[in-house]
């Protein structure tokens, strides 16, 4: 099987020119190339292809190029395409489908931590509020990362400073929070007494869930559990 591998390229090329391959051979050749490119983990160079094909079809580069052209034509109709890159040829999914394919690797959104939720809730209900006040109510320190994350998400913003020594920042909610919660106004949130009573809270929540709130698309997507999450590290956790 290996005898032909070491033949000089030129000879092989000459041979192919004198005895031009019939069309059906070219078809078959293009399928052999397709099989190789689909199964390979990396691009294959012309040299590699010639060598790999040698036992089935002793061919030269010229015939191979014709077969690649044929393959390119045949693929036009589907979701994949032939592409020449630095290290050779490969079959890749067309860019049109990159978005849908990316979903295969979509990460599961990390869970929001309890500390973040408590901080956010306090800002909702007690804004404008300083970090010190949040800490006082929660009874524990609030990590600067939490506030940073909340600001980055567009859920809260610094609305001013308290003119006291240290001039602590005052935080308030930002418009994105309403969008993400699917609310028109913060007034829709249950009142504090309602929250205190579990039954009333449930009633308030189902009232909110029942009304036609237009969920932004982003949220609906984020809710869908990822299909294949095994491939990527899941260490990304928001604090």
């Amino acid at each position, binding site marked *: 099987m290996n005898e032909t591998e070491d033949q000089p390229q030129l000879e092989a090329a000459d041979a192919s020119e004198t005895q031009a391959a019939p069309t059906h051979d070219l078809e078959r050749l293009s399928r052999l190339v397709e099989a190789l490119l689909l199964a390979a983990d990396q691009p294959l160079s012309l040299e590699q292809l010639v060598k790999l094909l040698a036992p089935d079809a002793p061919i030269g580069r010229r015939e191979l190029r014709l077969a690649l052209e044929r393959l390119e034509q045949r693929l036009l109709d589907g979701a994949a395409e032939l592409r020449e890159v630095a290290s050779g040829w490969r079959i890749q999914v067309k860019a049109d489908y990159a978005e849908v*394919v990316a979903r295969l690797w979509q990460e599961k959104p990390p869970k929001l931590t309890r500390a973040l939720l408590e901080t956010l809730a306090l800002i909702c209900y007690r804004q404008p509020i300083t970090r010190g006040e949040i800490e006082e109510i929660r009874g524990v320190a609030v990590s600067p990362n939490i506030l940073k994350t909340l600001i980055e998400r567009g859920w809260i913003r610094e609305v001013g400073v308290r003119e006291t020594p240290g001039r602590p920042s005052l935080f308030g909610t930002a418009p994105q929070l309403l969008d993400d919660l699917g609310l028109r106004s913060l007034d829709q949130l249950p009142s504090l007494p309602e929250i205190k009573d579990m039954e009333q809270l449930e009633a308030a929540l189902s009232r909110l869930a029942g009304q036609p709130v237009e969920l932004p698309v982003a949220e609906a997507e984020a809710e869908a559990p990822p299909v294949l999450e095994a491939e990527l590290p899941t260490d990304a956790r928001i604090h």
Partner: protein
Amino acid sequence: MSEIESSLAELPADPALAAHPVRVHGQLLDKMPDDLYIPPDALEVVLEAFEGPLDLLLYLIRRQNLDILDIPVLAITKQYVQYIALMQSLRLELAAEYLVMAALLAEIKSRMLLPKPVAEVESGEDPRMELVRRLQEYERFKTAAESLDGLPRLGRDWHLASAKPEEIRLERSLPVPQLRDLMLALREVIQRAELFSRHQIAREPLSLRERMSRVLEHVKLNGACELVDLVDLAEGKAGVVVVLLAILELTKLALIDLVQDAPFAPVLIDVGHPREGMDADGEWTEEASYE
């Protein structure tokens, strides 16, 4: 005899035999048994080739084109014992199962040669029966294993066709708080702080709180301003009221100051300055906060 067998038989067997004298039933073997076609130096390989005594027995039976149901027990036993003896003499490591089988075969043989005690016939315990049953059962799975191997398999007959997009843009999806989670978090923190008993903020509409933030932000960004700058006329009267309430609340909290330069001059809303009632950290003491 098949081609393989005859070709194997041609291999020089005797030198090996001379090097390792073999005794079968106490008698020295001067030549290899005729039906033992495998050269002794290949026995090690043979041992690996068989999947145990049942496999070896099956082989011996099949070699003679016999059905399991027609086992010539005597002949097979003889051959089997010869194999085992040979393997032992060559000091090949022999699995105990082979010896157990040899013992079983020897038992069967002796029983067949001896007149049957009546009791045994009645008990119905025929060791041959058990042997044949085991051979049959084993052969079924041996065959099944071969057909399993014959099935096309991923990695051997099939290969996954794979193509990836040139670039995979990973969008890290960010979590969005669920209202329920948010409420439950607040409920817990409130219970922890016993907020209800100390403060009367329940009736405050949340939009007022939000408006307080907006007023503060406006003053921070634009400096001192007038009431009209803070009112959105589109919100109507209710909007004006909320702004007013927000300003009053902020003033009470000393977050803004209301400044009037002269009588009848416009009231300016400006960033607040520390007043009495604040503690050293710039926080209001609890009593002062919400009264």
